[in-house]
């Protein structure tokens, strides 16, 4: 029996599609792929399957191993690195149907959910309980728990509670061979840390048990405007150390397109300054004290503390950083992790890149710890201007290169950033290769991602070729 027929008999006709229209709808993620590059990959899945149970995942992976067909797991596809985009066709697993809250232990604050549960649904579910989510992504209204766990797990709440890795108790995983097993702190043969952030290449997360944070009696949002970006960075860094908010965000705007500025311009030249905003949780006295510190530090550095209702508004808008896209209409970005003490330097570099490419840019920075920030500049471009867009896309390489040079790293790799894995995290990559060989002998799961960018011909794209191509694009973009 053919693969398609077997899948249909296993899952039912209404859960399997080979329609061209459907496969096209699943052939992408958040980031538009430059057409001139995409021919290298076969991003059109051959078959899309919608799964509803862990047993479905087990059955499909077993079958894929038998047929040696590539499998791409997909949540809501809200990442922009190609992690959920096929490179060699194959089977695409739509995991959003695994969307049940499995159990809630209110005494212990433990919540077990299936991988397709959307973060915002958990936030809503917990509203009437005495627990909160310790960490969740900026795309919480649509992104799924499994996908966030597979892609790094830094987000709102990380400053206070760490990454998702630190807030997961156990996971039921399905290995590429179709074996189902539970991984917890005492699993022995593999650690949660090894699997979380593995970008769907080592296993599919089936069910995850999250350790919740106790709901605190007092919460408050805060917001300040700064005319000088440098002061905003200074205050935010101090704030992260002295008051430890639940979340702390800095946003700056560098609208430079059409301006005749020449040469490097620094933090003081950015015309629109910056805002910092965030959220405190804690005991009433604690939160008040933190707010007082915030007020004092802001005023001391020439900032303006905004009223609480404005702060609430900004905090409630935290899921919408992509609003700016309407001005693009395309946004180019790459999330990088940067040491917080080098943030000013990084921002200056981004201003320079934006200036050189005549691109507008908005910078979003989330503090993930006292020492590190998740930095994602949103460069505005236009994918309809094919060559220009292609040259603009080189900006992501430059951004990651600089982050690595500063002691930071790429936040994730997927398809497009896989070239940076060695330079970013050499020892983790070595370990990753061993794990991949061990767990996925047929190399079916998320083939051609994270470790290499494998083309449709089965050959990895050489890093030197990628680097040379990107740098050439960048230079050509400047000249023309």
């Amino acid at each position, binding site marked *: 029996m053919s693969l398609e027929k077997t899948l249909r008999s296993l899952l039912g006709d209404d859960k399997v599609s080979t329609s061209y229209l*459907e496969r096209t709808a699943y052939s992408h993620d958040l980031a538009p792929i430059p057409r001139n590059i995409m021919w290298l990959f076969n991003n059109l899945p051959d078959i899309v399957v919608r799964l509803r149970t862990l047993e479905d995942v087990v059955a499909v992976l077993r079958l894929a191993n038998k047929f040696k067909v590539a499998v791409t797991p997909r949540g809501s596809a809200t990442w922009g690195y190609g992690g959920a985009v096929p490179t060699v066709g194959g089977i695409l697993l739509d995991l959003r149907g695994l969307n049940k809250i499995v159990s809630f232990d209110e005494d212990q604050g433990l919540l077990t959910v299936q991988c397709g549960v959307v973060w915002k649904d958990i936030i809503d579910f917990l509203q009437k309980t005495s627990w909160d989510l310790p960490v969740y992504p900026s795309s919480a209204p649509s992104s799924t728990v499994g996908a966030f766990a597979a892609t790094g797990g830094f987000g709102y709440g990380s400053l206070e509670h760490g990454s998702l890795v630190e807030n997961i108790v156990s996971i039921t995983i399905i290995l590429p061979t179709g074996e189902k097993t539970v991984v917890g702190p005492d699993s022995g043969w593999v650690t949660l840390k090894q699997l979380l952030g593995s970008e769907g290449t080592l296993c599919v997360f089936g069910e995850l048990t999250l350790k919740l944070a106790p709901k605190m009696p007092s919460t408050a949002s805060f917001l300040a405007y700064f005319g000088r970006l440098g002061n905003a960075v200074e205050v935010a860094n101090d704030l992260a150390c002295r008051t430890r908010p639940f979340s702390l965000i800095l946003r700056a705007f560098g609208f430079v397109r059409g301006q005749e500025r020449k040469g490097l311009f620094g933090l003081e030249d950015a015309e629109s300054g910056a805002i910092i905003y965030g959220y405190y949780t804690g005991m009433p006295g604690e939160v008040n004290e933190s707010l007082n510190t915030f007020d004092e530090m802001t005023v001391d550095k020439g900032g303006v503390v905004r009223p609480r209702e404005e702060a609430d508004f900004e905090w409630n808008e935290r899921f919408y950083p992509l609003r700016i896209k309407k001005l*693009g209409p395309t946004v180019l970005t790459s999330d990088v992790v940067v040491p917080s003490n080098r943030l000013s330097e990084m921002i200056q570099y981004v201003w320079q890149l934006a200036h050189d490419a005549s691109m507008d840019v908005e910078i979003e920075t989330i503090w993930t710890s006292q020492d590190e920030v998740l930095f994602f500049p949103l460069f505005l471009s236009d994918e309809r201007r094919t060559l220009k867009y292609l040259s603009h896309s080189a900006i992501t390489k430059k951004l990651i290169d600089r982050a690595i040079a500063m002691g930071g790293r790429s936040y994730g790799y997927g398809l497009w950033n896989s070239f940076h894995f060695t330079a970013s995290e050499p020892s983790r990559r070595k370990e990753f290769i061993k794990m991949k060989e061990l767990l996925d002998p047929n190399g079916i799961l998320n083939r051609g991602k994270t470790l290499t960018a494998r083309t449709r011909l089965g050959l990895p794209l050489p890093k030197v070729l990628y680097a040379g191509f990107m740098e050439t694009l960048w230079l050509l973009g400047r000249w023309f």
Partner: protein
Amino acid sequence: MIDALLSKLQREDAFACAQCGYCVKWCPVYDRSGWESASPRGKVFLLKKMLENNGSSLLTSNPRIASEFVQRLFDCTTCGRCTEECHLELDLLDLWFRLRELAVRQGLAPQSVGLMEKALLASRNVFGMDSQSRTDWATYTGAEVKVQDKADIVYFVGCVTSYSGRSQGIAQSITGILNHVGENWSIMHEEWCCGHPLAVSGATERYREIAEHNVRNIEHMHAKVVVSGCPGCCLALREEYPRILGRELNFKVVHFTQLLDQYVTEGRLHIPELHATTTYHDPCELARLGGVVDEPRRVLRSFVKKFVEPEESGSIGRCCGSGGLLKATNSAMSGDLAEKRSAMLQRTGADIITSACPSCDQNLAEALSKFQDSKRVQDLAELVAQQIGLT
């Protein structure tokens, strides 16, 4: 073809869509189907692919793919929830209408659309019934109907209320209440279908002549206000006619719940208390698209013992599945959506489920009849008239 029909802004929007998927989980059709191509995000992505391929190649080059895409366009209740959820504020609803127009012009629309258009234009009602029998509801229900040359208020009855036996009680109730409060009102001498079904189906070619007829007749009656119990008719008269005719109209258009609210607030209508727990289903075209959310609630709260809100209500109300011509193009899907909404309404524990749209009332009633221990669905106008003792 796409270039000609879509505005520059709409073509931009297809590229501006962040593909964030925030709209996806709220789309009732996606919720039922589960396939990406059924979701607003999926459809925008497919449109973008067409635009990248210089216009309509996907729609024209492969008939099978084209028909599949068009099916997705018509598997939509045009409830507007996607527009409400879009944080980039893209007007997706208008985009769906324009794409349906494109499908109609290319002869790709479902057969039921063509049949509806033909029937509507021939008989001036959406059912293709005898136009002479449009006011027979008055005879059937015994309503005291006024037909005057001039009136302050024109009651625009609408096709569903006029012709559908289950909905004629709404017309009876509305006319009864208008008489009860002593309004100077009238129905039209010759009411035609408002044309809203043409607008939502994309068969807009002859919409203008319908709008012209209705507006000319209403303006001849020197009416200050046009009232309807049908949110679709209200949208047509208030939003679509001025756009089609390119001018402001000389009358105000309100839904009957707005008039009811005014009567209650002004003390012109006293409704005896109803000892029952009641909930309210927001018709999408009244609440989300028409902005009428508080008025029906104020009316209900003024006389029911207990009012309970269902989940997903107000401007984020869950569609019952009757909109966007879905009942005609995919009745099974429409029925499934109605069952889902009915279950939400049942969960409120209310004794009575009210709404304010003849199509919603019907779809919900059909779905609720499948539940054991099902609740009553009544239009708010009917409930009020019944409480006052007018019906």
